[in-house]
């Protein structure tokens, strides 16, 4: 589902204006970028958003409305932040306590960013990684949210026509962020449930070689760790192999770590920045990290995107480019205070993690009660739900059909796996951190009711979801033997995929 974050469906509204006559300007007069589809908003997945917009759920005012579970937002810890704000009026330049700093802050447009802000970010980033890495504030570049940061790093690393490899399934808006104005193309690296969506060296090689054969210039690999939509973190060995692979191919490695502080369970988080500390002969100048406060702290509105590069030239050029998307100095100033408050940050991260775990567990338990399984995860603001058993047939058409049923009958907006370029149908991402407990209860109730109904249907010739056909689920969340393929009656099922 492209552009899930920063859109509002009223974009389709007719633009009214006084006596403006019908627009007759020849459309060739706009650029190719302006007239192509890479902004991603013409995709069919907008049905879900439209349904929500038309009929948004509200616990008391509209309890029959559509529940928004397609938006990866972190709303669990605002009370902690609000308390901090109340106790720290100096952090705002609008309060009586803080207004004496107004003019200096309002006047500050240096693209280096406020020193305190950079120090605060470096501090935060380090804490999120358990203090196992120290970040240099002088390598911290700002940009317009992670959206801006991802685009910026592409502008620095790749020319129009060049390519970046990206493991599937991936965040749908990568097409807009990485490709739209940059002219870069994406090469998917296929991962699937047969081996728990692991990013394997053969898959990487296959994607790389295919690109080479088509004379496409591959400039790098971009990974998201923790993963959106899977909600899992990469283990150290995999990370090392990715660093080695990219080093060896002489290409860049961009690690989108914007969900780093949403890890709520073991295994604990390993960032690429830690891994490269341990690798001798690693070419750091090929490594770049993307951070943000949108997911970790729940501040998407503040547009805090960070590019952290180990490459000096990228830092220098990226800093100049950040002019196009600097963080408001008012916001930098407030966040500097907050992020430099060590006690607060420690407390926040611990509590956030605890609440996410709690919310995750509650939701997953609810799903399990109706035999819906999900990909075991230890991070993120969502579950990667397995609804293969509810598909009429194992196809993307069926997936979309099921999705429409979920939106219009169950009245929950979820994101179908195909929108994430997932190579196998039946997966759905469902967000659980953007609502209160009561709403979660309503959602689970609706899901229970729906699955209960579906369980009694007897569709012709289709694999039926039988209540006793449970995926094996050991108590250790990371016993990776699950998945359907060995049980599939269809010999050429797309589920069985050689890697």
């Amino acid at each position, binding site marked *: 589902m492209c552009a899930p974050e920063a859109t*509002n469906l009223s974009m389709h509204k007719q633009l009214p204006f006084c006596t403006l006559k019908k627009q007759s300007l020849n459309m060739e007069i706009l650029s190719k*970028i302006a007239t192509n589809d890479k902004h991603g908003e013409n995709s069919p997945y907008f049905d879900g958003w439209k349904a929500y917009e038309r009929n948004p759920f509200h616990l008391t005012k509209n309890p029959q409305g559509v529940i928004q579970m397609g938006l990866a937002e972190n709303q669990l810890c605002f009370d902690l932040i609000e308390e901090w704000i109340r106790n720290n009026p100096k952090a705002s330049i609008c309060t*009586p306590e803080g207004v004496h700093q107004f003019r200096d802050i*309002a006047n500050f447009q240096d693209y280096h960013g406020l020193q305190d802000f950079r120090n605060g970010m470096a501090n935060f980033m380090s804490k999120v990684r358990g203090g196992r890495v120290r970040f240099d504030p002088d390598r911290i570049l700002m940009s*317009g949210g992670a959206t801006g940061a991802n685009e910026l790093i592409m502008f620095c690393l*790749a020319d129009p026509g060049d390519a970046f490899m990206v493991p599937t399934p991936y965040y749908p808006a990568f097409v807009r962020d990485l490709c739209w104005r940059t002219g870069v193309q994406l090469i998917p690296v296929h991962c699937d449930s047969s081996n728990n969506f692991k990013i394997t060296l053969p898959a990487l090689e296959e994607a790389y070689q295919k690109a080479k054969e088509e004379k496409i210039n591959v400039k790098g690999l971009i990974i998201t760790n923790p993963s959106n939509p899977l909600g899992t973190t990469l283990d150290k060995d995999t990370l090392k192999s990715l660093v080695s692979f990219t080093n060896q191919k002489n290409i860049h490695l961009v690690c989108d770590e914007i969900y780093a502080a949403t890890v709520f369970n073991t295994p604990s988080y390993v960032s690429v920045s830690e891994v490269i500390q341990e690798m001798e002969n690693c070419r750091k100048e090929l490594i770049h990290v993307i951070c943000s406060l949108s997911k970790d702290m729940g501040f998407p509105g503040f547009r805090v995107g960070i590019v952290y590069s180990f490459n000096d030239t990228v830092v220098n050029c990226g800093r100049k*480019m950040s*002019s196009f998307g600097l963080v408001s100095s008012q916001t930098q100033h407030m966040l500097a205070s907050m992020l430099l408050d060590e006690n607060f940050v420690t407390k926040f991260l611990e509590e956030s993690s605890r609440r996410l775990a709690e919310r995750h567990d509650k939701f997953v338990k609810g799903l399990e009660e109706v035999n819906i399984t999900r990909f075991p995860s230890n991070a993120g603001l969502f579950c990667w739900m397995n609804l293969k058993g509810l598909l009429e047939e194992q196809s993307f058409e069926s997936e979309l059909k099921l999705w429409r049923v979920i939106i219009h009958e169950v009245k929950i907006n979820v994101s179908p796996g195909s929108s994430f370029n997932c190579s196998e149908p039946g997966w759905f991402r469902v967000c659980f951190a953007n609502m209160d407990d009561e709403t979660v209860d309503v959602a689970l109730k609706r899901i229970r009711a729906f699955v209960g109904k579906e369980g009694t249907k007897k569709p012709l010739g289709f694999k039926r979801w039988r209540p006793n056909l449970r995926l094996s689920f050991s108590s250790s969340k990371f016993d990776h033997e699950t998945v359907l393929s060995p049980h599939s009656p269809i010999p050429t099922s797309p589920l069985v995929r050689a890697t």
Partner: protein
Amino acid sequence: MGIEIEQPCVQLSKVAVSETHGEDSPYFAGWKAYDENPYDELTNPSGVIQMGLAENQVSFDLLEKYLEEHSEASTWGKGAPGFRENALFQDYHGLKSFRTAMASFMEQIRGGRAKFDPERVVLTAGATAANELLTFIIANPGEALLVPTPYYPGFDRDLRWRTGVNIVPIHCDSSNNFQITPEALEAAYKEAEEKNTRVKGVLITNPSNPLGATIQRRVLENILDFVTRKNIHLVSDEIYSGSVFSSSEFVSVAEILESRGYKNSERVHIVYSLSKDLGLPGFRVGTIYSYNDKVVTTARRMSSFTLISSQTQHLLASMLSDKSFTEKYIKTNRERLRKRYQMMVEGLKSVGIECLKGNAGLFCWMNLSPLLENKATREGELELWNAILHEVKLNISPGSSCHCSEPGWFRVCFANMSEQTLDVALDRIRSFMERIRKY
């Protein structure tokens, strides 16, 4: 005895290694000199005075007063209510209250002579982003925008760097006070044609930076007719519109369109910002106002890369919807800038230095060509500039950095300092001129 194999250096993009960001130009030495030895009234009275930065610092007290009187409205209040909704708000349409306030503010600046529809306001993080974004929308790599000289040096970066679009200058000179003539427009268009470069639009700055003057009505009408004939776009960067010393002297392209019943208006787009008029460059508040539906929709989508912090939108929505505050601010700001301008221009006149007759902006366009004598070249100008930087200890902007075709002109900013500092600067210029006269 090993063989050393050189590691291939991984290429960055062409954009990354190009110099189109413009920061390697010689005039950045001025910034360095200032950074190394910045003037301070008390602690470093012999330091370099920064007169190369077009910032508006004359009206902060008005903003501070507003905040002191309305701190509840502009913060999240005592209980921080509304914080959560604000922190989550990332809709690229922007806060409706803010867009409405911006539209209304833009109307007030134009004395109500043009109406602005909040639905056509697109928000970006600064005019820097707005100009780049519009360029991405109206031109393809390799195509061109026509821009009158002299122009803001940052355009080289904003319009060209990541977009791959070219700038073809529309030459203007002092023979007619640097006004844009129909002949100059045609000549620029022809120059592009001869280079096999397709022209997609004209970008003007009104009031002009660095000239510090508004564009006359009939010149605007000519430009509009020109772009209509050629079927290209017009971008009017009006970020200094609130800094016109007298409201009646500014004509916005919006007024002309209104008077023409919006005929052919779909090719026109206005850029605005609060960095100059309100002195808030740190807040990154830019807007695009387009009369073209497709441009509005596309610009809005593209603004995802450069949204304004919702915290800042919230603060400014409250401030700018207070009509009595904005009326007073606009009026007072104009008056103070006018006074500064007069002080500057009279001070220069008293030592024989003429400026272009200006009526807007945060700077004046100073003519030092008489000092160049037989060195009326770009090199001569840079030599003089160096002397001013290192002997007079003033950082001013040489015309060549603004692509001015006539050597000897300099942009001097006067609104980014106290009156006392301006006095010191004028004193230094006085002594410098006396020294020169002796030789």
